[in-house]
């Protein structure tokens, strides 16, 4: 992948206007305006930035920025056009040389290297909250990441069945350390040794979403240099979006001919979302009883692995005492879109409202999902309900509470 939009011209031209993306595109489904549809974004990006038939206007900027980058259109697209990548490249093009973007980019660079906010960014977040710029109920990332505490090797309990490297997502790292601890607990309980390498950086997806491909590539390279040298059967992550980045998008960023291409391919082949990996190898320790009614929200970034969305259902089906209550539309976006909701509060809020109704009608007290952004964003509007990673629910069934 390069910043050059022209590279995508052939792909853009494959769009036949079949309109099948109307079935999944969350911004379209909410507004029912065809301009805010995946195929329209392709059409307008071509008209404004490639053919230059239209001048990029504020309306055009809104349309490009109004994409949640969920990638659901790619799933619905018979031609599998990578609309998300085209939108990212367009954002990169639009952001070039913009002062505001430069500020954001610098903050992002620091955030990514740190895998969480450093003191200055934390300060900026605090100001934003005071000024009412931060949505209520959404926790702010803390600057004492959990990686430092978990780094190293945690031996398995009982007979060792395998060894994995655990890539802790930035969200678990600085927002939700309980999830990271639960993942380690559940794996080691099941005879799998967990290694948490120090010095990894953010997966790079936030930079990619901004269209900052160089920054994203830098993060991928840094992580590959570390992950490529480790001896493990699998690399697991608690975050579906990190999974997508490590498994799929990294290969677009490290094209054939790049010195790290072979490493990227090897690493990509080992990446699993933690629930899916555990479901694949099976549980060796039987979970105890857990009286709970729960439902499952499928994260948008799920198509990198076709069985990822089935894994939580399958793995937790054996929890004695629990009852699973399926959502009417489990795959529909919740509106979070990573950090999309911070800047599009109205649209995100309306998308979320439908999800909330769906969740409430299931009667579930716990909602599980492998995406930390979805969990935080839904939790803010669901007082009295808990939003958990699937493995956190399993951790409870093993008797660990709140990160053991």
């Amino acid at each position: 992948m390069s910043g050059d939009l022209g590279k995508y011209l052939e792909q853009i031209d494959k769009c036949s206007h079949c309109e099948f993306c109307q079935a999944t595109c969350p911004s379209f489904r909410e507004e029912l305006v065809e301009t805010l549809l995946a195929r329209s974004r392709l059409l307008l990006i071509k008209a404004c930035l490639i053919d230059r038939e239209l001048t990029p206007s504020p309306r055009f900027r809104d349309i490009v920025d109004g994409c949640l980058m969920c990638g659901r259109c790619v799933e619905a697209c018979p031609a599998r056009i990578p609309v998300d990548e085209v939108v990212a490249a367009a954002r990169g093009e639009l952001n070039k040389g913009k002062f505001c973007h430069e500020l954001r980019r610098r903050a992002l660079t620091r955030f990514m290297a740190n895998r969480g906010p450093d003191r200055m960014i934390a300060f900026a977040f605090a100001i934003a909250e005071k000024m009412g710029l931060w949505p209520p109920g959404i926790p702010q990332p803390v600057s004492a990441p959990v990686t430092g505490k978990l780094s190293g090797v945690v031996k398995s309990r009982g007979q060792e069945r395998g060894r994995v490297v655990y890539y802790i997502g930035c969200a678990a790292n600085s927002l939700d350390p309980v999830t990271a601890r639960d993942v380690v607990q559940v794996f080691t309980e099941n005879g799998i040794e967990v290694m948490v390498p120090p010095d990894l950086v953010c997966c790079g997806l936030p930079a990619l979403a901004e269209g900052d491909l160089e920054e994203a590539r830098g993060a991928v390279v840094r992580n590959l240099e570390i992950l490529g040298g480790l001896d493990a059967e699998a690399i697991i992550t608690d975050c579906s979006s990190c999974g997508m980045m490590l498994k799929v998008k990294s290969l677009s960023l490290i094209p054939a001919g790049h010195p790290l291409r072979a490493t990227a391919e090897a690493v990509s082949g080992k990446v699993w979302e933690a629930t899916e990996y555990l479901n694949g190898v099976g549980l060796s320790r039987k979970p105890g009883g857990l009286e709970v009614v729960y439902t499952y929200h499928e994260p948008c970034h799920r198509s990198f692995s076709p069985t990822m969305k089935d894994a939580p259902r399958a793995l937790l089906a054996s929890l004695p005492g629990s009852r699973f209550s399926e959502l009417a539309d489990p795959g529909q976006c919740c509106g979070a879109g990573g950090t999309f909701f911070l800047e599009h509060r109205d649209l995100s809020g309306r998308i979320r409202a439908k999800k909330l109704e769906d969740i409430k009608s299931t009667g579930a007290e716990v909602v599980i999902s492998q995406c930390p952004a979805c969990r935080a964003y839904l939790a803010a509007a669901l007082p009295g309900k808990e939003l958990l990673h699937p493995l956190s629910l399993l951790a409870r069934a093993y008797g660990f509470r709140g990160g053991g």
Partner: protein
Amino acid sequence: MAKNKNIARDLFRLLNADKVLAEPEDRLCYAADATRYFAQRSPDAVVLPETTEDVSRVMKYAFARTIPVTPRGAGSGLSGGCTPIKGGIVLDMKRMNRIVEINLTNLVAQVEPGVVLAHFQRAVEKEKLFYPPDPQSMDVCTLGGNIATRAGGPRGVKYGATGNYVLGLEVVLPDGSVINTGGTCVKHSVGYDLTHLLTGSEGTLGVITRANLRLLPLPPARKTMVAVCETPEQAASLVTEIISQGAVPARLEFLLKSGIGLMNVYLANRLPMTGEAYLLMEIDGLPAQVREESGRIAAICAGMKVLETRVVEDDKEAESYWRARQNLNPILQAIFKRVISEDITVPRDKIPQLVQAMHEISVSLGIPLGLAGHAGDGNIHPTVLLAQVNEETEKKAAQAVERIIRTGLKLGGAISGEHGIGLHKSEFIELELGRTQIEVMKSIKKAIDPKGIMNPGKIWMEEAGL
């Protein structure tokens, strides 16, 4: 440009601001349907009505100023039918998307036109009811668009197309007045059948704002089967054989090897590439009936010595074949520079001749011709595929299209089974209907739409007026 600004300004006064779009970006996105090449110009404004009252207001305004109005559903049509070639206003009906009622006793539903077909089907299936019409864009296409084009799909063979399910309509006429045609009863013999005049009128007579649709009880069992045939001729004969022996599958699709190759990408359990043609079938009904009928069809297949008959037991797997089938046309559009989907339909017993004729056309013009479609009801879609678009290939494509159309008519068929005429087939409509019939249609058009503002430029050729 001034015209665009004026219309937009007036509409903003007439309706809430969030129901009107008039930026150049928005207008560009409403210029085309799923046949990109028919897009000629952007509309001057797009209106997103939420009530019949909204539609009526817009029509009164447009009527007074003689501004063209083009209603639009999902925009997934394949005939250029909803392209605003004269500019004016596009009425995007997707926000009128309420299912007003599903009446379990009367087996009737009342819907607004923007309801997405698949959403409607899921809603009625929850009540153990069934709405069969299944155009392949069902995940996005709207009931209003379906009614306006008499859309259909694979289930046509047993259940017919949309036209068979429309009992009554609420319609806003070009001058803004509102009429209710038909009703909710299965029997209705009062005056001219305006319900079925409006059904299939492609937005040229009025705007459908509500519809009463007939429902059936949901068949409790279904089974999918695939027959791998040695030749297209064998598959075609198999179709006639199955039907003549009294078995009526719910869906009966004819596919060529090339189509199967593309579908295989989406299938976990891929189909063997040993055949030259394939029949994809679904049998539905009571469990015993499904067992009996699928057994009978398997026996017919065996009797005709097809290469393989696959009976799909798993529901999820069965679904994957139909989903892959749904993707076939769009995937062709992604591979080829231009795809012209023809829509002829012939009496079922003429399928073998049709298949043979299509092969001859393809060979004699040296142009690839896809062939996939609803063989069970005679509606096979010959698809002209252009890898390059230039003067020579366009000329050949035009020749192919004309020969396909003439073949369909010669075999006693129709030039369109389920897509409608739109812009795509207006040059051929006279071949089928003849001058007199077109004159009758035009006088009806003139009586209902005297100013010719409803979706102008569609169905018949421009120079013929209106």
